[in-house]
């Protein structure tokens, strides 16, 4: 655990020292919110409240996919070899990375949540926010593991950047971020039902409404664990030769 924290702290420190990286992942979700809240002030407040959970999940999605390349970079730049030769258990390198990516995503989601309130979203109870952020954390672990697995598999930045832009928008649009299930055409409905993003968004919405979304959270726990295990396998394959 000590090693895990050391790795996570290293990444957080490095991240906070590069202001461009701090801001860049916030631009998209902030733009959505400000567009809904300020540019379209005529739209009803209900829609802003409806899309806020989706925008929070989108923030986590982008943060997770963006962070997916981090371990691959450590490998390409030679840091990983030094870490692997250190006596801390090797899996703590991966655990530290997933924690870092998730924590960073949560910090960004917090900024987005504040912006949402500023542009007019309804202020919820403390428990509703706590539940929402717990759901975001679970989803963060899922996306961070997913991104890291893909990046380690592809092994270089260019391919991963392509994969990232190829994945991010479609995943968002083919989810319940913008539409309710009953507003969707049949094809989209089935895709949205299979999309992990929908589970996170639905869960966050239910939490905002004041109830704890047990089934969705169970699904999120399950897919996060599976993805983290797949990622661990990929990590071992990428580090042992």
């Amino acid at each position: 655990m000590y090693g895990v924290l050391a790795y996570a702290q290293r990444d957080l420190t490095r991240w906070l020292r590069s202001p461009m990286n701090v801001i860049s992942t916030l631009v998209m979700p902030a733009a959505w919110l400000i567009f809904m809240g300020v540019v379209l002030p005529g739209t009803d407040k209900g829609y802003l409240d409806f899309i806020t959970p989706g925008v929070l999940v989108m923030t986590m999605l982008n943060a997770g996919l963006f962070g997916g390349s981090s371990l691959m970079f450590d490998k390409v730049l030679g840091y990983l070899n030094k870490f692997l030769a250190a006596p801390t258990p090797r899996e703590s390198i991966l655990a530290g990375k997933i924690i870092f990516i998730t924590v960073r995503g949560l910090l960004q989601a917090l900024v987005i949540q504040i912006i949402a309130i500023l542009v007019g979203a309804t202020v919820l109870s403390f428990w509703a926010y706590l539940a929402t952020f717990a759901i975001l954390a679970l989803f963060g672990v899922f996306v961070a593991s997913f991104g890291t697995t893909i990046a380690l598999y592809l092994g270089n930045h260019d391919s991963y950047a392509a994969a990232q832009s190829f994945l991010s928008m479609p995943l968002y649009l083919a989810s319940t971020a913008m539409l309710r299930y009953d507003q969707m055409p049949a094809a989209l409905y089935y895709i949205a039902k299979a999309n992990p993003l929908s589970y996170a968004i639905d869960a966050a919405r239910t939490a905002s409404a004041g109830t704890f979304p047990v089934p969705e959270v169970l699904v999120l726990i399950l897919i996060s664990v599976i993805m983290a295990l797949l990622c661990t396998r990929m990590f071992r394959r990428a580090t042992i030769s």
Partner: protein
Amino acid sequence: MNTIEADGLTKVYEGIAVVDDLNLRVSGEIYGLLGPNGSGKTTTVNMLTTLVHPTSGTASVCGYDVMRESAAVRRSMSYVPQDMAVDIRLTGWENVELFAKLYGIKDKAERRERIEYVLDIMNLTERAGDMTKKYSGGMRRRLELAQALVHQPNVLFLDEPTVGLDVTSRRSIWEYITKLRGTGMTIFVTTHQMDEAERYCDRVGIIKKGVLLNEGTPAELTSDLDDVIIIRTDSDLPRSLPDGVIPVKSEDGETVFSAKDGSGSLDPLLDAYRADGGKVFSSSVRGPTLEDVYMQAIGPGEEAPFDEDRFRNMMRRR
């Protein structure tokens, strides 16, 4: 028990044995593994530091098997890889602190003391608070040594520690390494700088295509070779050469001979040139160097001018 032992250590990549049946015994000394690019130096170090699994054979570090007790191996040693990797967005202090934590130094006061100590030995105290982005190549290398030393390892593995550094930095790195040997540490270093190896290594091994060709102290290895006589001339070889003087090569108006007794053979050789009416502009005699041993073992033209190794590391997909 030797600090580093290898028996029949072999690594096969794509059907080629890049390290082939290597046997090593290294203890309490600076051991230099010498060889051209691609000869298997890094692969050897990677197997000894538990980063690469051997295909066959065994190896141990401080008595721990690199395969079965790899965690114990990692606790006993430190490793500075060939490609420099310091975090440029962390300060010198933070870079060392990270490794102090990874080596499990949990006590805050102790950690602080260790970090201060190694930064001081490596002459980095004044710049410890600066981002390492601003460090020169030599400083970065010293910082990596500080990282490696922060947990007082018994063995230090250094893969090409002076590559890409200027003369002064190279010398100071070697002086630090020599000091460490004085504390009883075993140092395993790879290089293709023969002059450095000759000067600073207690023992060297010459490796080519994964096979260890030659091993011994630089003095032992050079003692088997003849002296070298170099003649600058525009004349052809004399028709008759003194006994025991053998022409080795001739290029750019410089002819190189080998002879058992270099200084004793010089005058007869000059006489031979004069007897043919040739003109000698200058001449010199020197003893054999490790470079001569190396060139003889490796053969001419084997040293790749292009650093493929580095290139491959950068381009390797996984």
